[in-house]
């Protein structure tokens, strides 16, 4: 099972609202946050834009491929767009699996793919 959201609001304490699943042995959560420096310059925020519609579709596509390829139970993802201040999350990904190795591999692969194909861009920074 895969769920994807794209949000213009804060996602730091995002609740995916998952039902408990007694098969789950491993739950892995990744938070990608905005750092205070970008290309060696001190910044206060990053501005993200998306290709609306396609960003969602691509996240769903690579999410489904991650679930299938690594045999995890489910993958849930929320990506924030717009202006994101330093210290706040740009992305949260949650993966559940029976054993931990699948979740680690799926998370690593999903994030690598995301940074190749999902049409979301950092288009600028603010002081």
């Amino acid at each position, binding site marked *: 099972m895969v769920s994807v959201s794209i949000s213009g609001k804060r996602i730091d304490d995002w609740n995916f609202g998952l039902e408990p699943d007694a098969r789950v042995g491993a739950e892995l959560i990744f938070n990608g946050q905005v750092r205070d420096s970008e290309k060696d310059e001190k910044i206060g925020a990053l501005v993200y834009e998306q290709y609306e519609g396609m960003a969602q579709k691509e996240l769903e596509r690579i999410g489904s491929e991650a679930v299938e390829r690594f045999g995890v139970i489910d993958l849930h993802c929320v990506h924030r767009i717009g202006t994101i201040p330093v210290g706040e999350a*740009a*992305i949260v990904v949650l993966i559940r699996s029976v054993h931990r190795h699948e979740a680690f591999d799926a998370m690593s692969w999903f994030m690598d793919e995301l940074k*190749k194909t*999902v*049409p*979301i861009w950092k288009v600028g920074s603010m002081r």
Partner: protein
Amino acid sequence: MDITVKCFAAARDVLARDEFHMDIPEGTTIEVVEREIRKLSTQLAEMPFMLALNMAYPAEGTLVKEGDELAIIPPVSGG
């Protein structure tokens, strides 16, 4: 045939527009459209980008159809 081409990030900066229309003959492949787009600007000619077709990455040789939505996708940087 009329198609729409959306411009994002660096491509929008270079072309100074969000989207534009192109008139192409029937039977045109995505590769030919890409070549035409690269002719629009010297900066675009050198820019690494992918083309999306109707919100997905098309297979090689895909034919573009009347009303299709294409998009210039410069290197992404989400996450």
